[in-house]
């Protein structure tokens, strides 16, 4: 396999992974914008999406699209529950309390899934059967296409939501300035709940398209970590930044693993994270000024 072909393969893998990271990063960003909280359980939303979908498909024998949709709704509900029960009581607490609460939630989700579903991988069939696609000499599974397509559609839908609907615009207002939003009659608490629900839903979408590869109770941890690396890289508090960050991280990670060493693949993401935090904490795409760090 020639070098150029290998490069192409890495790029394709990277962009696909990037799509996933972008979705998860978006989840982080949405919650952060409305609550100033980093949600450590974001990766668990991904895991729950896959687990619910698998159960709906394999046990309730629903079709793939229906399982997918219902699972997204279910995880959104879980996200909302999480906000109401665990985050809301701590809204005036210290940063450490809030962080520990989301960490606790993450552990709780993992423990519950482990208890109910066991420790084995759960699967759904690949969305379309057939041979992997070839693009020049790079080979990729059909599921990769699904991942990209669904990721892009989700981002598009989200964009429309923010731009065109009242709720979306209200959320944008909320994240820009809470007090002013309250003055014009926006119910901040509703916005917060909505953001958790949305964020969880996005996580579940990512989980759903990843489900064919197999997920188990602790699969969410790595996704969560990579996802917020991506969010920081792109600029926390910035939707477009989150998406760009996701793709950038995905590609850089693949190239690093392929060209340098696969051993340090995970460390690479965190090195990038640290570099961004120390040099340009606002992230790559930060446009407006905000809190000085």
């Amino acid at each position: 396999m020639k070098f150029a072909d290998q490069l192409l393969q890495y790029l394709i893998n990277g962009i696909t992974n990037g799509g996933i990271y972008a979705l998860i990063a978006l989840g982080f960003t949405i919650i952060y914008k409305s609550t100033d909280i980093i949600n450590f359980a974001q990766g668990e939303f991904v895991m729950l999406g896959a687990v619910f979908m698998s159960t709906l498909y394999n046990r309730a024998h629903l079709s793939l699209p229906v399982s997918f949709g219902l699972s997204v709704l279910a995880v959104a509900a879980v996200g909302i529950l999480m906000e109401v029960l665990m985050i809301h009581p701590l809204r005036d607490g210290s940063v450490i309390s809030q962080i520990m609460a989301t960490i606790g939630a993450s552990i709780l989700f993992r423990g519950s899934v482990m208890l109910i579903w066991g420790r084995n991988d759960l699967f759904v069939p690949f969305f379309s059967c057939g041979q992997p696609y070839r693009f020049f000499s790079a080979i990729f599974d059909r599921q990769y296409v699904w991942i990209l397509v669904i990721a892009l559609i989700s981002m598009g839908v989200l964009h429309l939501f923010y731009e065109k609907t009242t709720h979306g615009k209200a959320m944008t207002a909320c994240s820009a300035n809470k007090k002013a939003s309250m003055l014009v009659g926006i119910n901040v608490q509703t916005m917060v709940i909505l953001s958790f629900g949305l964020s969880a839903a996005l996580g579940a979408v990512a989980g759903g398209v990843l489900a064919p590869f197999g997920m188990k109770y602790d699969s969410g941890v790595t996704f969560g970590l990579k996802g917020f690396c991506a969010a920081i890289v792109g600029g926390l508090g910035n939707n477009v930044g989150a998406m760009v960050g996701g793709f950038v991280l995905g590609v850089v990670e693949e190239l690093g693993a392929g060209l340098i060493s696969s051993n340090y693949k995970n460390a690479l993401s965190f090195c990038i994270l640290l570099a961004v935090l120390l040099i340009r904490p606002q992230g790559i795409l930060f446009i407006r000024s905000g809190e000085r760090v």
Partner: protein
Amino acid sequence: MGRKKGKLFGILVMCVVSGLFLVQTAFSAESKKPYKIGAIFDISGKASALGTPEKQTAEMVVEQVNKAGGINGHPLELVFYDTASDTQKAIESVNKLVKKDKVLAIIGPSTSGESMAIIETIQNNEIPNISCAARIEITDPPKKWVFKTPQTDRQAMAKILGYMKKQGIKKIAFMSVEGGFGSGGLVQVDSLSPEFGIEVVAREKFSEDDTNMTTQLTKIRGTDAQALIVWCTDKGSAKVAANIRQLGMTIPIFMSHGIASMKFIEQAKEAAEGIIFPAGRLLVFDSLPDTDPQKKVLAKYAADFKAKYNTTADTFGGHAWDALNIVIRAIEKAGDDINRIRDEIEKTKNFVGIGGVFNFSEKDHHGLGPESLVMIKIVNGKWTYLE
């Protein structure tokens, strides 16, 4: 300061918690009669496909022994701790078994990493340990208190390389999982391949937690390797097998005896087709001639296991069967004298087990020779005997 005073209450609280702690264990007083054997396996972590049949087998053997009247009239009791492949937990469990449960011997752990980790603790505590893991370094150089039942990774690697040499394969790629077992494999392939005239042109590592290994496989595709060896247990190997299929790679794939369970075939599905690996005779016992010394033992074990657990028996359960039976025979001769138990284990000769026929000695604490392995190919989701 209020806080400082409050600390005395803190001490009281700690005493209460400690009290609860003491009560819980003090009331589980042991009588002198039962013979206790400790078992540490992974039934919930990365190696659960290994530990689960190991635990099940151990429990089945204990039940059979007790039904037949125990060991010289003493009931046999198994004290089990799940390590979840966590080396610290393994060490803690050994300490617990020795200090709290006062067992006579310990069988397990399931993985090479854990077995290496507990060696120091076992030697320090002077308790016999029969490990169910593969790495040759566990018993080479021999340690006074440590034995093992599976064939060594060195033996398995030699078997694979020997087979490859016959096929005329000269260049290979090697993929190993992070951890003790994978590292052991890498050491062995580098050490043995020159002897068989084979060159290792690529070495890649992966982690069981990775979602896919296409990066590493892509790199391998860029080399002129004629075959690939993947050294990992079932979960990771299944993922790699699936990736190999996705990438449409056609070179022959060889794996370790770590995939010698139905779990691998269940997870890999069509991707398992054509994979070749070395394992003990248990997997293909019905193809064996009746003159084979192991056939009777294998058939009985397979039947008993299937009857009790409704699952196909595999070599991992077999390792536990061998370990436990060796310990039981030692206790039969030595009673509850731990030092003598160890000596009796070391004196084991011609023990027909599941892994092979065991012969221990002062210098040899792994007991099996290369003839205990056969090459197996997965065809149509079943194990078929190659040679």
